[in-house]
Every structure is written in structure tokens, then in C-alpha cells.
């Protein structure tokens, strides 16, 4: 039996509530951060940047849930799209520094002068324009996902094999970005940002606006994702997830459906990465580490796979837990995370959303038996 049900918690009402809650929380924190220092409701810059980080991660989790929860693709490399989006935005932020860098060069970022480069590499072209950066933020992850997915789904790479090669993809990218010669700052990545669109990145107002924008974009992505999975196309995805061969025999093209949702998901991850960079202030190759991608999967599993809201919830809760844990008991965070992986898969196959639904006594939806899938395929 497939332990994952897809329906009740992703009901339109639930998603709208979740989106509203996200916007309200982001807006509330943004306002609170603008209150004077002595006010009991004042939110410090640290809290604001943490909240921005959580919401960016929630976008990554949403992206993972789209492909894992609805198309059955367990991705172990989604952080690659997140990081690529981050680097695209980071390039723009680097150029915004202009002549205020250590070497005072108006055109070249510091690390290029350090490598004694004379010109910007071609792929940095246009990076001084925010609009171009915004295009790159979705285009680069989308393009990579398109090429990778087109190759992988067309040749019916699936299951664990697909998981492993997504992991290899992000690992290869990590190795590549660690190299100075690639022109993205090597080990140190891109950092020391000053402005965005002329506004000081360290000013409370800019940070409050960024947090609000993150909340709005997360809410928009949530609604867009709900629109996708609620459409006929979404039903096709679920069909592909539960019985890919049957769907194919019925005349659908599973690989096209998978490719579409895969690219869409990569773009959401890219936007998440871009928002992350503006608020955390650094992007380095460590973001490509395979462990990050796997962690983003556990956020989804904790919240509840195939529920959209659960992904957002899971990402925020697990990351809050991480922040608290690493502050109080740094030694034990890995035990906690490890147990979270094990206990969620063993005892909470439907995540927190499943638990909530159970508490509300909503009967689980009838799900397709999985027998057909494991027997019929690739015979």
C-alpha cells in the first residue's frame, strides 16, 4: 500500500490558509523589526535574517515536495538548483558592490582581481542589471533541470537510480564551484554584498522589505504549486507516481509530465536560493553539498509528503529545531537529525500533516495499491 495520501491537506482552503499565514508571519516580523529598539515587540536583525532563511528553505522544500510528493521522483540534488539561483542573484549583488570593494575596481569583483583576471568572463555579462539577474535566477536552474530531466526521463531512469544521479549532479557541481578557475569565487563563494537596487542590504527597512517579499513569493509559489497539482495535469502526475507503466499504456507521456514538473520545481528552488542569498549574505559551494539536498527531503517528509503545506511547515520547523539545537546542544544535533530521519520514515510516513488529519478523524483517502507498479514495470 502506498502510505502517502494526497488529498485532504492539500485542499485549496488549506493552501490558502497556509499562504495567508506565511504572508502574515513575514509581514508581522517585518513590521516588528522596524519598531524602535526598546519596544517589547521589536524583532532583531538576527531574527529577521533567520526568518528569511527559513522561508527560503521552505521554497526549496516546496520544490522538493512537488517532484517527490506528486511525481514520485526522489531528488537528492535539489539544493543544486537552489544554489544556482543563489549564485545568479549573488553575481548581481557582487556587481552592485562596484568600486567599494577592497581593490576598488568598479567592474571586477575582488576575487577576480585576486586571480589577476583582466576582464569579466562572458557568463557574467549583464550581471550588473537586476532584471537580468532575475531572469537568470529562474532560467539557469530551469535550463539545467530541463537538460538533465529530458535526458533522464526520456531514457526512463527512475527510482533509486535517478536519486543517485541527482546526487552525483549536485556533487559534481559542488566540486566545480570549489574551483577558482570557474569564476565564482571558489571556496569563499560570493559575499560582502552592500546594496540591492541601490538600497543598503544592512538597513532594517531593506531587510524588512526582503522578508516580506520572501513571504509573498513563498505564498505565490504555494498557490501556483497548488494550481498545478490541482489541475488535470496534477492528476496525471499522481497517476505517473502511482503507476507509471499503466499511465503510459493509457496513452499518456509520463516523461513529459515529469519533465514539466521537474523544471517548474527547479525554478521555484532557484527563486528560493536567490532570496536566501539576499538575506543570509553569502553563497558558497557548500550549498551544493549532497547532505543539504538530503536534508531538504527530510523537511518534506517531516511535514508530510505530497501535501505542499506540509513541506513549508516541515522546512520551517526542522530549521527552527536546528537553530535551537545547535545553540543549546551542538553535540547532539546530528543525533537529533538522524533520529528525525529514522522516526519520520518509520512512524510518521504521512508526516505532521498526516498526524493532524488523523487527529481530526478525517478518514484517509483511498489510495491506489502499489502492487501494479512494482510488478508491471520494465519487464
Amino acid at each position: 500500500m502506498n502510505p502517502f495520501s494526497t488529498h485532504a491537506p492539500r485542499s485549496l482552503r488549506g493552501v490558502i490558509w497556509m499562504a495567508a499565514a506565511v504572508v502574515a508571519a513575514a509581514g508581522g516580523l517585518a513590521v516588528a523589526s522596524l519598531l524602535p529598539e526598546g519596544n517589547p515587540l521589536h524583532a532583531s536583525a538576527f531574527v529577521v535574517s533567520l526568518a528569511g532563511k527559513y522561508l527560503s528553505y521552505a521554497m526549496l522544500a516546496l520544490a522538493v515536495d512537488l517532484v517527490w510528493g506528486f511525481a514520485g521522483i526522489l531528488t537528492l540534488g535539489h539544493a543544486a538548483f537552489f544554489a544556482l539561483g543563489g549564485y545568479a542573484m549573488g553575481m548581481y549583488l557582487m556587481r552592485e558592490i562596484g568600486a567599494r570593494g577592497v581593490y576598488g575596481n568598479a567592474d571586477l569583483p575582488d576575487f577576480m582581481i585576486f586571480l589577476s583576471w583582466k576582464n569579466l568572463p562572458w557568463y557574467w555579462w549583464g550581471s550588473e542589471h537586476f532584471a537580468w539577474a532575475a531572469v537568470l535566477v529562474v532560467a539557469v536552474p530551469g535550463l539545467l533541470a530541463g537538460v538533465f530531466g529530458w535526458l533522464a526521463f526520456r531514457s526512463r531512469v527512475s527510482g533509486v537510480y535517478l536519486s543517485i544521479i541527482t546526487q552525483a549532479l549536485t556533487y559534481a557541481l559542488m566540486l566545480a564551484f570549489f574551483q577558482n578557475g570557474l569564476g565564482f569565487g571558489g571556496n569563499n563563494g560570493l559575499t560582502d554584498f552592500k546594496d540591492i537596487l541601490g538600497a543598503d542590504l544592512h538597513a532594517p527597512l531593506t531587510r524588512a522589505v526582503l522578508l516580506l517579499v520572501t513571504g509573498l513569493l513563498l505564498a505565490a509559489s504555494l498557490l501556483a504549486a497548488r494550481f498545478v497539482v490541482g489541475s488535470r495535469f496534477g492528476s496525471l502526475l499522481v497517476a505517473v507516481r502511482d503507476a507509471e507503466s499503466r499511465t503510459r499504456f493509457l496513452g499518456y507521456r509520463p516523461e513529459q509530465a515529469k519533465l514539466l514538473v521537474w523544471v517548474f520545481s527547479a525554478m521555484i528552488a532557484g527563486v528560493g536560493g536567490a532570496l536566501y542569498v539576499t538575506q543570509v549574505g553569502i553563497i558558497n559551494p557548500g550549498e551544493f553539498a549532497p547532505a543539504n539536498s538530503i536534508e531538504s527531503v527530510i523537511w518534506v517528509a517531516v511535514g508530510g509528503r505530497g501535501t505542499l503545506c506540509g513541506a513549508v511547515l516541515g522546512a520551517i520547523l526542522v530549521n527552527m529545531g536546528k537553530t535551537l539545537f545547535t545553540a543549546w546542544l551542538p553535540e547532539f544535533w546530528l543525533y537529533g537529525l538522524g533520529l528525525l530521519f529514522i522516526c519520520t520514515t518509520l512512524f510518521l510516513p504521512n508526516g505532521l500533516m498526516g498526524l493532524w488529519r488523523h487527529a481530526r478523524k478525517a478518514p484517509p483517502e483511498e489510495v491506489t495499491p502499489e502492487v501494479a507498479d512494482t510488478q508491471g514495470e520494465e519487464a
Partner: protein
Amino acid sequence: MRRVSTTCLLAALWLGVMLLPGHGARADAFADLASPQLGAVTAAISTLAASPDPQAGVALQALGERNLFAAPDGSVYIRHGESYVEARTGQPQASVPEGLKPIRLNNRIRTALAGVQAGRDLLAPQPATRLRAADALYARHDPAMLPLVEHALAVEKDAAVRTRLTEVRAATILGQPPAPDALASRLEAVRALGAVGGAQARGILAGVAGSDAEAPALRHEAQAAVSRIDWHLRAWGVAQNAFYGLSYGSVLLLAATGLAITFGVMGVINMAHGEMMMIGAYVTWMVQQAIRATVPALEPVAILVAIPVAFVVCGALGIVIERGLIRFLYGRPLETLLATWGLSLILQQAVRSIFGPTNIAVQTPGWLSGSVAVGGMDITLNRLAILVFAGLVLGGLMLVLRHTPLGLQMRAVTQNRRMAALMGIRTPRVDALAFGLGAGLAGLAGVAVSQIDNVSPNLGQSYIIDSFMVVVFGGVGNLWGTLAAALALGMGGKVLEPAIGAVSAKIAVLVLVILYIQRHPRGMFPVRGRGVES
């Protein structure tokens, strides 16, 4: 005895060659040591070095130790603590002339003295000393040493020293400015150097080939020798890289076979496999510590004791993990992947808490240290041992799979789980044993890796992705596939490495495997048949 008589003979011959001017020259030589002209001093050193007079050696040694003094009248004295002896005669002096000054050393004099020492060492009884002396002479190209080198060459028996001396002789000849009458000897030297080969010889020959002052015939010959040496160096370089590749491939093979078995039988990717390797390495360390504390005499073979211990410990741990965790996730391979990842985090942190986050020092026993030179390549013994070990493990595994009931059952479950169950095979038991076997193999890999890599809690992480690549590249349920994939990935990386660098080579291999999987989604050796589950 024989060496001593040879030395006497040589000393006599040397006298004949270099001391024809006779005693008078020697007498002057002592005085010349104090000469203000550098040329005279170095000439005097050469003369004295060739002298059979024991007093000459004493004087030179004193010069090196700054104990040689010159009086304004030209007489030379050696200081022994507070007293002085006359350098020429060795007579103790009650009083010394006024204005006695130490003879100063400078670089040229030091070099000359070092050459003298090298000349003496060239005839020393130990081959190692002679080889060192030849090395020292090689760098100097001192034509004055040529007769000595030629003599040493004539009496030398040791092959390595002979080769080196041949090089020294040729290098010395070629190091002199070209003269028309020396063409024959220079040609011979070029040929000798060409025959010896190696990077240093290539450097000298390239210098000759590129020099306008040399005769065209000589330059041509040198050029030919350079390209011959280049070809040799390249061929040995390829061989060396192939060995590195083979060695890395054997490590990958060890790391991946266990993974391939669990994946083949259960369709489960064990993300904690790398941590099993890490535990195997820690077990090696513990076995070494225990043996050192109890029976120090057995320390050299501690590594051999660690092999079965690591297998049993990791295998038992694997069975516990299967019974305690994996079996509840039966039929959900992707969830298993997440759960074992969680397990790997816990194991890492547990080892970190117990043994500390830093590297531990696993000893490499003496019989596994060092390397042997085969032609132009170095074979390190520990890597060679791992290569052999990987072969033995693979062979043993093949035997288990082919000729034991467990192997038969595992193969049956791999091919068609349901049918195997219907035939009366207790698949849960096979699962547990297969998982235990896989973990035990990881433990063996850990023992091997502890000999070539840092042992820290992060050890597993550095191998796990490469091992996955091997498994998906090779295909499931076929050990030949695993073997081929491990060697292909190991060799592929090392062959690309010189051209594009280590990291780029790694990236290239990853990308190639990703692309290969697109063409062959089930690896190089897929299991075929109706029973294949997705």
C-alpha cells in the same frame, strides 16, 4: 679486505695520474692553501686531495673545520684545541709565529672540499655511500674529478652505482665547453646518457641539443636521445597512472561490492554503507591498540587480525540494522534511503563522541611500508597489498555466491523475490544475511582504507558517492559489473587527471557516468528477465 687493497691500488694510481710534479708541488700546495688567490687555493685542494700523504687529508679536514691557520711567512698550522701542529709534518709546535690568521672559507672553497670528500666516498666500502658521492659529483661537473670517476667506474660492481657513475662521467664530459677534438668522447657521452635515461639525463641532453656551440652531429644525436627518453618517460608515466588507477579502482571495488550486494538482493541503497567502512577502520585501530597492549610481538600482523574482526563486527552491526530498521521499511526503497541516511548521521556522531573528531593514527606495519621501483614507476606496497586484497575479497565473494546455499538463495532472491519465496526460501533471513554480508564487506574495505587514508568520523562520506557511482554504473546483481565499473571509474579518473587536473577529472567522470546512465538506465550489466522489479 679486497676493498681496502683496491683503495691502496687506487691511491697509487692517483698518485701517478695527478702528482707527476712530485713532492715539490705538494710542498707548495700546503702553502697555497693560504694564498689570497682563490684559483691557487682550489688547485692546492685538488692536489692535496690526490696526495697519499696522510697529513694532506688531516690538513684538508682542518680547513673544513676552520682549524687551519697561516703565518705571514707562508707556513701553515693546524690548531688542536689550544696547541698547534705544523701542517706539513704534523710536528707539535711549542710556539707559533706572530700574526697567525685562520684561513677563511668561502663557497668555492667549500664546494672544492665537498668534491674532495665525494672523491674519497666514491671508493668507500658501502654502496650507499658511493651512490651518495656519485650524486654529489653529478651536480658539480668538475672535470678534475673525471679520472677519479673513470677509475671508480672501472672497479665498480654495483649496478645502480655504475649507472650513476656513467651519468656522472657523461655529464662531466658534456659539462665542459665544446672543443673540436673532444667530439668523439662527447658523442660517446651523449650515447651513454641516452642509454641511462631519466629526467636529469634528459635535462643535460636537451641542453646539448639546444646549444649552438655544439657540432651538428652531436646535437642531432642528443636530440634523438631526448626524444627516446621522452618516449620512455611518457610510457612509464602512463604505466604509473595506470597503477594509480588500478589501485583506486580496487579501493572502489572494495567499497562498492557490499553496496552492490545489498542493492541487488534487497533493492535498498544503504546510505550508511560509508559509515560501515569507517567503523571497519576504527576496528582496525582498536585491534592494533589491543595487540600492542597485550602481545607487542604480534604488532606487525595486527592488520591481519583486524580483517576477520572488522568483518564480524560490521557484519553483526549490519544484521542488527536490518532487523531493527530496514525490515520495517520493506518495499519502500526510497524511504529506506532516508532512514539509512539518518542512521549514518547517528553513527558518525557516535564515533565522533567516543573517539573524538580528529584523525586517529592507524599504524602501517613495516612490511606494508615503502615502495619498490619497477622500471620507471614506483609501486607502493600498501597500495599493492590493497589491490591483492580486493582481488581476494572478490574471489571469495564469488565462491560464496556460487558454491554456498546462502549464495544460491541470495542469487535467487535477486532474480525473483516472489518466486524464491514460493520455492521455500526464507527471504527475510536472506535479507538479513545479505545486509550483514554487505556491511561486513564494508568493514573489510575499512581495514584496507585505513592503510592509505585518514581515519576520521568523516571517512565514509568521502567514499559513498563514488561507491554509488560504481553500483549504478556497473548494474545490479552482477559482481563482474561492479568489478568493471570500479576499474573503469578508477582508471578513468587517473587517466584524465594529468591532462585536466584531479578535480576536473572527478567532475568529468561523474558527468560521463550520468550520461552513461541515460543510455543504459540499468548499468553496464543489467539483470534481465521478467522478474526484474523496478
